[in-house]
């Protein structure tokens, strides 16, 4: 079981490394969107500090979304997906591997760059830790839920826009607890409660979403 998951992860990571432009452009999208906000709302540090968690999180949602349409589309186009679907192990495991790989190339870099962007918003040290942790813990859930949307819209016209329509409403709890963790830390309430709820959402998504996505893929392959 672990063998197949690691096989999928290592293949997808190898592919991503050969196409670094994709990772880098999603990361730059994140950086640019976050940097645009101060220009739009003014440079007052108090205001920026207040808005930072929400801005960083919304930008993270959009940046993760950017790479979702290709999650299965490439494998679908060249016939690899069919081979994965008829391999002698459950398709849900394959999708789990793909979700983890997607997080490694799309969620993880966001968490690493987040503290740097937080500095732009004049966040305190513990707020920087909180935003990094919350993005680190929360983004796997985004990859998991996103996989369902990517699988449902596989091969459809205008799939990219449709994914956002399907997936963004389902992202709301992650957004609330993710940004809430930073807020709670800043106001001195402690972000642990939010972070554990975020972790619960992530575990539930990683455990459950790949199987729903696998069912959607089978429907798409019929």
């Amino acid at each position, binding site marked *: 079981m672990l063998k197949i998951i690691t096989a999928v992860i290592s293949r997808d990571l190898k592919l991503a490394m050969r196409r670094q432009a994709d990772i880098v452009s999603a990361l730059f999208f994140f950086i640019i969107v976050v940097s645009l906000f101060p220009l739009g709302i003014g440079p007052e540090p108090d205001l920026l500090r207040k808005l930072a968690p929400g801005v960083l999180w919304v930008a993270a949602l959009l940046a993760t979304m950017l790479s979702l349409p290709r999650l299965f589309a490439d494998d679908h186009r060249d016939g690899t997906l069919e081979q994965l679907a008829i391999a002698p192990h459950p398709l849900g495991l394959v999708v789990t591997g793909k979700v983890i790989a997607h997080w490694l190339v799309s969620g993880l870099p966001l968490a690493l760059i987040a503290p740097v962007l937080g500095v732009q918003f004049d966040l305190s040290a513990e707020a920087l830790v909180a935003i990094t942790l919350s993005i680190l813990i929360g983004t796997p859930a985004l990859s998991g839920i996103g996989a369902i949307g990517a699988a*449902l819209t596989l091969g459809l016209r205008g799939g990219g826009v449709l994914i956002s329509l399907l997936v963004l409403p389902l992202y709301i709890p992650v957004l*609330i607890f993710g940004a809430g963790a930073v807020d709670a830390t800043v106001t001195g309430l402690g972000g642990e409660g939010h972070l554990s709820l975020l972790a619960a959402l992530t575990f539930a998504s990683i455990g459950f979403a790949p199987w729903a996505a696998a069912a959607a893929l089978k429907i798409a392959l019929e």
Partner: protein
Amino acid sequence: MTDRLNLYRFASPATFYPLAGAMIPYFVAVSVVFGIAGLWLGMLVAPTDFQQGEGYRIIFIHVPASWMSMFIYLIMAFWAAIGLAFNTRLSGMMAQALAPTGALMAFLSLWTGALWGKPMWGTWWVWDARLTSELILLFLYIGYMALTAAIDDARRADKAGGLLLLVGVVNIPIIYFSVQWWNTLHQGSSVNLAKSSMATTMLWGMLLMAMCFWMYSIAMALMRVRTIMLERERHTDWVKAELAHIVAGDEK
């Protein structure tokens, strides 16, 4: 023994189509009766609310619309589960026939909520847990309709839409609780609907209006499902026979 009641028979479009056609006028009539009774009780008889004055009368459509918007989503999810489990043709058609009415109910709930909120709370919109969840519900309806519309193959549209409905129905409580939690945390608006004990006439008015909305929704869904059936089953003999004798625009 040949006349044994067979439930599967009613699940087949060929038998359900004429049955639905025959039932529509009854549902419309019952809906109108309930509507007149509810409006009479709610708009003419019910007394003024001591806190909200006459403005509370929006409740007679706001609450039924909100109920229906949630209820219809649950019914669609129920049909989706049946369709995915037993691979029945009718379930997907029913879910698709219900969706537009559900979305309109969610819209009405938001619209009347805004018109109610303005005089009572002084604002068209508050980020209250209930309003926010209703908005998200509307997004879920739109997502479902966009997905089924984007898929050309009817079978795939049913299955993919059904899966989305099930994912949505699992997520609705999570979304609701997270929004509620977020709302109490921010302590934004301390909005509370008047918890005053309702006058009996108000309660009855509301229930009658809810029945009216319910019957209306059923009539609309049946009307739409008949069209979907003709479209989907256009190569079967019963649809060809049906098409041969109906004159478009003329049939009841």
